[in-house]
């Protein structure tokens, strides 16, 4: 068991990763833990009989947010531009990533963390493009969390000044509330889904900075109201940017690669704050 974070409780596994005994962590001074610090105080507390009320006021996401902030600081220190891709299963996330990697890999260093409940198929697809990828299998978990991603980042052993694409588990609901330390959340919707998804799954469309509408080459064959979809997304999040593209035909992919390059440059120039929305 890891003495710092107690992560033997976690049920996720990072593919090809070290055993628990081999875990590497920042020095303890850099890895403060709420859970380990105050134990000695307990002995001095007088035992009371009967029940008592403790007013504790603790945020249930505090631990995830702590790890996310650690990830964010580490990524920013190394000039790594991290993006969290979230969508339903089957929207074309992995295809979009392979296409964009093929366009960017000559000029940019790219790493990928793949999240799925089971299998390492997606990481293998990404590796075929020649970039380094690691797979997280969440088991029964329906989303990635900042602790899993922190270990995956360590495993990738990244060089400075790079892109990190984190493909979350296919799920439009659960990943929304879990900050991973990314610069931006990107939500992907395909035209084979309903245009009303922004209204049905509001949290993620509110949390994302960019919405990609994928598979626009299929628009002539499906009943998808593109204009209405964009209006719904803007109702939920007036600041959301929207790019319509097809990962398969390549239409408008350049718009997305330009977005990536411009936003990476903006973050590195220090004009972009760490992009956590005001909560």
């Amino acid at each position: 068991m890891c003495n710092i974070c107690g992560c033997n409780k976690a049920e996720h596994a990072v593919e090809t990763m070290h055993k628990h005994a081999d875990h590497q962590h920042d020095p303890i001074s850099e890895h403060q833990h709420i859970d380990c610090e105050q134990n000695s105080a307990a002995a001095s507390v007088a035992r009371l009989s009967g029940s008592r009320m403790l007013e504790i006021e603790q945020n249930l996401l505090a631990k995830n947010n702590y790890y996310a902030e650690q990830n964010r600081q580490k990524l920013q220190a190394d000039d790594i531009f991290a993006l969290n891709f979230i969508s339903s299963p089957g929207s074309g996330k992995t295809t979009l990533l392979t296409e964009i990697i093929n366009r960017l890999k000559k000029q940019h260093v790219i790493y990928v963390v793949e999240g799925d409940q089971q299998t390492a198929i997606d990481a293998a697809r990404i590796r075929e493009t020649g970039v380094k990828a690691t797979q997280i299998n969440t088991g029964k978990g329906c989303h990635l969390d900042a602790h899993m991603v922190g270990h995956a980042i360590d495993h990738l052993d990244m060089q400075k000044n790079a892109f990190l694409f984190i493909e979350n588990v296919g799920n439009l609901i659960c990943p929304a509330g879990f900050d991973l330390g990314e610069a931006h959340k990107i939500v992907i919707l395909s035209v084979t889904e309903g245009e009303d998804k922004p209204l049905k799954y509001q949290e993620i469309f509110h949390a994302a900075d960019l919405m990609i509408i994928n598979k626009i080459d299929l628009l002539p064959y499906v009943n998808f109201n593109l204009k209405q979809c964009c209006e719904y997304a803007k109702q939920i999040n007036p600041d959301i940017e929207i790019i319509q593209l097809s990962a398969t035909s390549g239409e408008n992919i350049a718009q997305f690669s330009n977005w990536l390059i411009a936003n990476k440059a903006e973050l590195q120039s220090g004009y972009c704050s760490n992009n956590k929305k005001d909560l």
Partner: protein
Amino acid sequence: MHELSIAESLIEMIEENALTHDFKKVIKITLEIGVLAGIEKSALLFCFDAAAKNSLAEGAELVIQDKLAKGICQHCHQPIITSSWYEPCRFCGQMRIKIIDGEQMIIKSLQVEN
């Protein structure tokens, strides 16, 4: 079903508090959950029973207090109470509401026994 990971976090945090505050059993847990926190109350209650099994919170009563969302209309600057991300301002009808409260998930209190 991220309510399961939330329930597991809750149990972990209770166990940490048990060390800090020296208790052996939890009788009642009170949470405050904002209506925009993305939590389905019934799912959390269901997952809590599973997550609490064999922990010091097994059998504890879980009380979830809803917290309404508050926002400020960015058009007319009126404070409003809302329950979704896309309700128009009731004063001016505009959609741009900046949410200032209602996304939280907080453990308010624990009733415990030594």
